[in-house]
């Protein structure tokens, strides 16, 4: 009995001696995120009043050119200018549906009223009523600067600062890196699709991954 106790004691003492001390924490590679991809800026830079575009190297008011060149009312395929515009706005595929035929510096509302580029939301509201209603309430859209209602710092983005009016569907995004902590390791589902070891933060603690049975997803 005494032999057993002393043997246990020495074994324990030896084990403490060998294996205590600060264990090495796993080292992680840093995830690199381009700071430009998380800059708090509107998605799009838009034209404001007075709207000017550069064509042939000359910056001009829209009306300046269109005083000389009449705009086409045909299908968009017939365009000779503004060829960079990809027009995919559903059934709305005529320039004059939005741009005023007479005053090329503005948009046409129902009844022939013309608004400038700064009030583009009134144009969109012609068709997107519920969304416009939400936007007016602050429920749809994005507000930069301040949450304080009526504050000078508050800047409500206009429709076109997020949506391309000619191509309103959002282009897909490349997702930024996912979770990267000890507990948030990859779920089992990925084991079928990818190399699970590449995801598992606990891999640093293993000497031979083959010998260690895979733990559950949680």
């Amino acid at each position: 009995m005494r032999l057993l106790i002393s043997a246990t004691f020495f074994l324990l003492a030896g084990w403490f001696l060998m294996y205590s001390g600060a264990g090495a924490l796993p080292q992680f590679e840093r995830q690199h995120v381009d700071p430009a991809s998380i800059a708090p800026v509107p998605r799009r830079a838009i034209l404001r009043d007075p709207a000017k575009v550069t064509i042939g190297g000359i910056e001009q008011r829209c009306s300046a050119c269109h005083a000389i060149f009449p705009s086409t009312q045909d299908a968009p395929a017939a365009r000779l200018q503004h060829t960079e515009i990809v027009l995919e706005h559903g059934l709305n595929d005529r320039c004059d549906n939005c741009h005023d035929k007479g005053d090329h510096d503005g948009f046409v509302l129902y009844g022939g009223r013309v608004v400038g580029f700064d009030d583009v939301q009134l144009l969109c509201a012609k068709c997107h009523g519920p969304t416009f209603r939400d936007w007016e309430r602050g429920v749809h859209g994005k507000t930069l600067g301040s949450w304080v209602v009526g504050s000078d710092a508050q800047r409500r983005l206009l429709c076109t600062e997020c949506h391309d009016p000619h191509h309103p569907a959002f282009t897909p995004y490349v997702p930024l890196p996912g979770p990267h902590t000890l507990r948030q390791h990859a779920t089992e589902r990925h084991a079928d699709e990818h190399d699970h070891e590449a995801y598992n933060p606990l891999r640093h603690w293993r000497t031979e991954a083959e010998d260690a049975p895979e733990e559950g997803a949680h």
Partner: protein
Amino acid sequence: MSQTQSNASRMDGPGYSRRSFLRNGVAMAGGMAAFVAALRPLAELGEGALPSMDEFLQKHYKEMNEQEMQAALARIEAKVKERWDVDAEVRDVRPRDGVEFVYALNLSRCIGCRKCVHACVAENNQSRAPEIQYIRVLEMPTGTLDIEQGDHDYDHPTVPDAGHYYMPIQCHQCADPPCTKVCPVEATWTEDDGITVVDYDWCIGCRYCEAACPYFARRFNFAEPEIAAEELNTQMSYLSNRPRSKGVMEKCTFCLHRTREGRQPACLEVCPVGARQFGNVRDPESSVSQILETKRVFVLKEDVGTLPRFFYYFDERYPRSGETAVEEG
């Protein structure tokens, strides 16, 4: 050992026999070695790992007077200067009167790009390796709200992925938070504007709050946080984004150093689709009040009774030209 000793003395009279002396001697040496080995981590603590006397005697956040707070802030600034050689401005930003913050997130809009996750990391000086992220974006199969089916490790080449919607989860700033109730040292509490905060200098790192949170919103610093000097956000506040140390909990604070001064949270400003809305729920004109009034809103895990200040909502969605209506059922 007393058994051994008494046996030895019974057999060998008052003195020590050679055998018992050796045995006890080796046992003592082994015991001492084990003791020293157990204490070895203390010797491996680097310079600055132990708090200075001022830090050690620093009071709880709520008990500090103006002078003590200024001294504490100056100490933090000095530590930042020493560690990163960066001039930081550390402040103590207090809640505004008549303000209760609420967050609303539009599930119809979120595309799962994770920009909010990384804007948050950059704003709040989280550790980069291992990276601590307050926001977790769940990719959910369309047609279910069962978060067990969510996946936060998705890595499609582009998002949104067909057949999925995305549900970001961060601290819900509950009105009845389980996390603050379990804290044994009152290092975490809910402020007057509804934000649950942590005094990082008071936290003992027991992680009870992490276990209590039904939203997995709290994060623990298992390792010494690693941030590059050029990545450090120098606009800091005591209760939010000042540098943390190893062994303390941290969590989303709705960017209180920004929002208590009227600014928007970092995750909202970076959102490319406007899925996030933030504001004062006591102001009926605020966007969040309007959302609660006019939208279909739900909270996550309503059944656990935490009364979150974080709401999810939907848009009505009518079929567009060329689309067929989604079948009900």
